[in-house]
């Protein structure tokens, strides 16, 4: 169990982001989203509605999707976080990212990081999902360009490539 250490009004937060250990002094009301973007420069995590509706700020915390706008940085202490920057390996994009490009599943691109991370969490727990399961997995991610058809195609293509 990792307990947050307090220094005055600030808390020491240690967490592993994309395989790298990070530490920061944060205020109690700092969200994980702001910590990732402002302190650690992982700006691939997008700021959308900030109320947990749009899913643009989706990251994986211990492998599970969360809206980072609704997680306090102090609550993320001791956890492992994966952002969109953490998906590439040795300069190569993840299969999901490749398929988003191949299927032209990106329009403005603002929802893409969240979409891809939600899809990643799905494919880890269920490597061969049905279309319905894919649609449900991205149910918390809104695409204002409404490009869902190609997004679903891209995720199914990535699942196909896994097999």
């Amino acid at each position: 169990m990792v307990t947050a250490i307090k220094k005055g009004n600030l808390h020491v937060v240690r967490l592993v982001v994309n395989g790298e250990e990070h530490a920061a002094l944060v205020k109690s009301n700092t969200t994980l989203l702001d910590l990732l973007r402002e302190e650690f420069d992982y700006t691939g995590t997008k700021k959308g509605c900030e109320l947990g509706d749009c899913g643009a700020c989706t990251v994986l915390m211990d492998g599970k999707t969360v809206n980072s706008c609704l997680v306090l940085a102090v609550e993320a202490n001791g956890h492992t976080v994966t952002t969109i920057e953490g998906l590439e390996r040795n300069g190569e994009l993840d299969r999901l990212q490749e398929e988003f490009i191949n299927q032209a599943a990106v329009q403005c691109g603002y929802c893409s990081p969240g979409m891809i991370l939600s899809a990643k969490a799905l494919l880890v727990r269920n490597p061969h999902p049905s279309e319905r399961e894919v649609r449900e997995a991205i149910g918390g991610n809104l695409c204002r360009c409404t490009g869902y058809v190609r997004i679903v195609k891209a995720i199914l293509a990535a699942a196909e490539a896994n097999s």
Partner: protein
Amino acid sequence: MIVPEFEYLSPQSVQEACALLIQYGANAKVLAGGSDLLVKMKDGLMKPAYLVSLKNLDSLKAIRYQKGAGVIIGARATHNEVMNNDILQAKYRSVCEAAHSMAADQIRNVGTIGGNLVNAVPSADLPPILIALDSQARIVGTSGSEPFHWRISFSDQARLRLRAERSSRKSSFQISQRPAATTSSSGCVGQERWPWPALPVALRSAMVPAKTFASSSAQWRRHRCERVRPSKSCAVRRLARNSSMKPGESPRSNQNLSMISGAASSIGATSSTY
């Protein structure tokens, strides 16, 4: 959008959490998943000076079966943990289905069953099925005495109330949620009739034989389609017609049925006001 400033407290035990809630009274709120509380704080509906985090209280996450008592669900179990739990899938599948119907994966990974109950919003997915299964909330304080058992029910007011009644003595408290609410959330349930702040620590689901359960699950699914109906009497009539109950069957099933009807019509009535 900024969360108003507060002091963050992370107690190491349930007793410590209760002590902090007593110390800070109405200035403190309990933080579990935060998916409701932080939104309210961002919207300016709440501005607690202290947040008491349940993050370190892992004992509240357990879901276990206890012979003679039924399935006990920790208040900090997330919706996805409820949904994917093997014991609940085998014994109370309708609870898993209700948890599954809640929000999206991101929220289900952080939102907790305890928070969902005490937040008491009219559109909550879990309370109706927990009422239908005659579940009880076990609430603990700092008095050191045995935790009390509470029966949960909805009133059918346009403003939703989640009422928990102590079965052993004649006293009750309620968690209420009004439009543009500033009432309690995420576990801080200090109310006027309750002398000290309390934490709901577990839900104890009463033993329901598998057969009865299967039937109540089917009723529930049927009723989910019906709850959009505006007329309460119409829904009740329809339920009575659809009921597979025979004369002389246990009054318990009867009670479950009427509770479903009351809860669902209350949802129908309140959702139209939003």
